[in-house]
């Protein structure tokens, strides 16, 4: 069954081959495992980009295939990041605290250790108590479970309430924006238990691997991100290829008709919304150790809107389109905003790309929507003739 699935979907094989090749090339050109043509920071950028590609295919499934324009999927991405960040921060602070206390004549009690860790982590927000949500922070396994569980549960509850009331279209989009905004505002508070606007930092230091250089860690996370993207791609391609794909595309095109065929549309939407939220959480959990820091600004409403723009520019309703869109737009974006693009001196005015990039992005979004509704991915239709 698995083999026939891959044969029926040659684009999946092509994608995996391309991703594999890309991973090998980057690995061979990195500093530790290769010739050193690619800097460690750029390996991190590429690894983060792969995570963005992963959330983009999740967005494509929920929007491009199922027709739910969620503008809140970055909330799930952020939650995944926070969940893994809590363990990273706790475990690393614990190591530091144990080191500094080890010189004392009387061994510290577990209460003293806990207080010292709490002081280190929550000192910035004027607290030293561990909030309840940090109860599992000492266990990597449990926090990994949280990476999946919390986004999944939030999506399940939110989706159940929204879909059950038959909220659709732009109203649903607004609700999802409100969800991510509310979460972001909540996390900005110092007493939210997640260090307010400071967020969680130092996430690039992996506890237990203090002796390992960032160059090595970066390539490990890069490869892990590539594997996650590959696995996510195959999973979603499988979901949308068969009858499930038929039904969710039917929901996108004519919800009422699907209902009268006897399908419980709300359950399908909830299923798609939830699995894409879980994958977004996983993508976030891989992204933030590479970024090093997560703060509530990351899940501001604009982030989820960018996600929709990537998918629209890349091409909705085809998974590789979402990958192309996310990779292309986010890399070009960081080139422009990172000062990579030279300013253009027009004599009377100098175009500074850090300011003007958003205008360019907005215009290209409008242009793609008007003139190339299939996005960049649509170009493949000219190259590949569909088998009849």
């Amino acid at each position, binding site marked *: *069954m698995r083999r026939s699935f891959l044969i029926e979907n040659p684009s999946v094989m092509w994608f995996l081959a391309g991703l594999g090749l890309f991973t090998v090339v980057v690995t061979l050109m990195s500093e530790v495992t290769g010739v050193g043509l690619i800097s460690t920071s750029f390996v991190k950028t590429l690894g983060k980009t792969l995570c963005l590609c992963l959330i983009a295919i999740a967005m494509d499934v929920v929007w491009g295939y199922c027709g739910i324009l969620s503008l809140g999927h970055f909330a799930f991405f952020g939650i995944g990041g926070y969940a893994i960040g809590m363990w990273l921060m706790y475990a690393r602070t614990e190591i530091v605290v144990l080191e500094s206390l080890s010189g004392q004549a009387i061994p510290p009690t577990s209460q003293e250790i806990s207080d010292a860790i709490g002081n280190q982590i929550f000192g910035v927000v004027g607290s030293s108590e561990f909030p309840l949500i940090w109860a599992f922070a000492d266990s990597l396994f449990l926090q990994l479970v949280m990476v999946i569980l919390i986004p999944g549960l939030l999506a399940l509850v939110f989706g159940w309430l929204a879909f059950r009331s038959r909220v659709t279209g732009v109203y649903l989009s607004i609700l999802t924006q409100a969800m991510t905004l509310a979460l972001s505002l909540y996390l900005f508070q110092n007493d939210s238990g997640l260090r307010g606007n400071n967020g969680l930092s130092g996430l690039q230091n992996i506890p237990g691997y203090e002796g390992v250089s960032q160059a090595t860690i970066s390539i490990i996370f890069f490869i892990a991100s590539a594997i996650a993207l590959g696995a996510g791609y195959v999973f979603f391609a499988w979901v949308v290829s068969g009858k499930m794909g038929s039904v969710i595309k*039917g929901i996108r095109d004519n919800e009422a008709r699907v*209902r009268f065929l006897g399908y419980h549309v709300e359950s399908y939407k909830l299923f798609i919304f939830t699995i894409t939220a879980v994958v977004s959480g996983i993508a976030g959990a891989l992204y933030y150790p590479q970024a090093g820091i997560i703060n509530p600004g990351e899940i501001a409403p604009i982030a989820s809107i960018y996600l929709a723009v990537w998918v629209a520019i890349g091409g909705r309703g085809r998974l590789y389109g979402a990958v192309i869109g996310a990779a292309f737009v986010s890399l070009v974006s960081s080139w422009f905003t990172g000062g990579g693009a030279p300013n253009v001196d027009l004599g009377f005015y100098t175009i500074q790309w850090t300011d003007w990039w958003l205008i360019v992005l907005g215009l290209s979004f409008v242009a793609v929507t008007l003139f190339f509704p299939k996005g960049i991915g649509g170009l493949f239709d000219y190259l590949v003739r569909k088998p009849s």
Partner: protein
Amino acid sequence: MSMLLEVSGVSVTFDGFRAINNLSINFAEAELRAIIGPNGAGKTTFMDIVTGKTKPDEGTVIWGERNISLLGMSESKIATEGIGRKFQKPTVFEAQTVRQNLAMALKNPRSPFDVLMHKKTKHNAERIEAIADNIGLLDNLTRVAGELSHGQKQWLEIGMLLAQEPRLLLVDEPAAGMTVEEREKTTDILKEAAKTRAVVVVEHDMEFVRRLDCKVTVLHEGSVLAEGSLDHVTSNQTVIDVYLGRGHA
């Protein structure tokens, strides 16, 4: 005689307008019935009530030999109970192939998990081909539904209804926009389907209704005005006054 569907004393009001007024109508198993009536007679609202889209203010809708009430059931639940509906405008999934359209409609478990784990079987393929043959689209299975002609889309939608294996088929203006030959074929498909299930056709076109050659119910202002053979109802003076007179004046 035991009835398949019993609608009794149903009323529904939209913003003060009484779309359905104390309507009572019954359908037997394996029956072909035409419902006619002027615009605003409540034909489409009647279908909305039976399929769960609209909740009536009062009255009962009783289904099947177990006499269960359809009121309060979701659209999808009613559909799986065995009531299929064809809309006025042909609504097929235009981005998907004829085969995919039929496969989606085919009577099979409908839960997300069942659908996710669904595997193509020879049995299902044969069922799809048999239906496609019935509606004259056997050679078009791999075509995208959006490319089909208007008449072919109508048939595909009827085929999707048949694939659901409903016990009651509600068909809203199947002949609209069809050529004469297409109408004849549509009549044949509906008559054939009515041998094994109840088929209710809402239609404006009297010529088409005559060709169906079945019992006719005339609706007017949300209730039944007359019932019987086409000749019987068309000779009814009230029917002539409120409906035929207007249409043919």
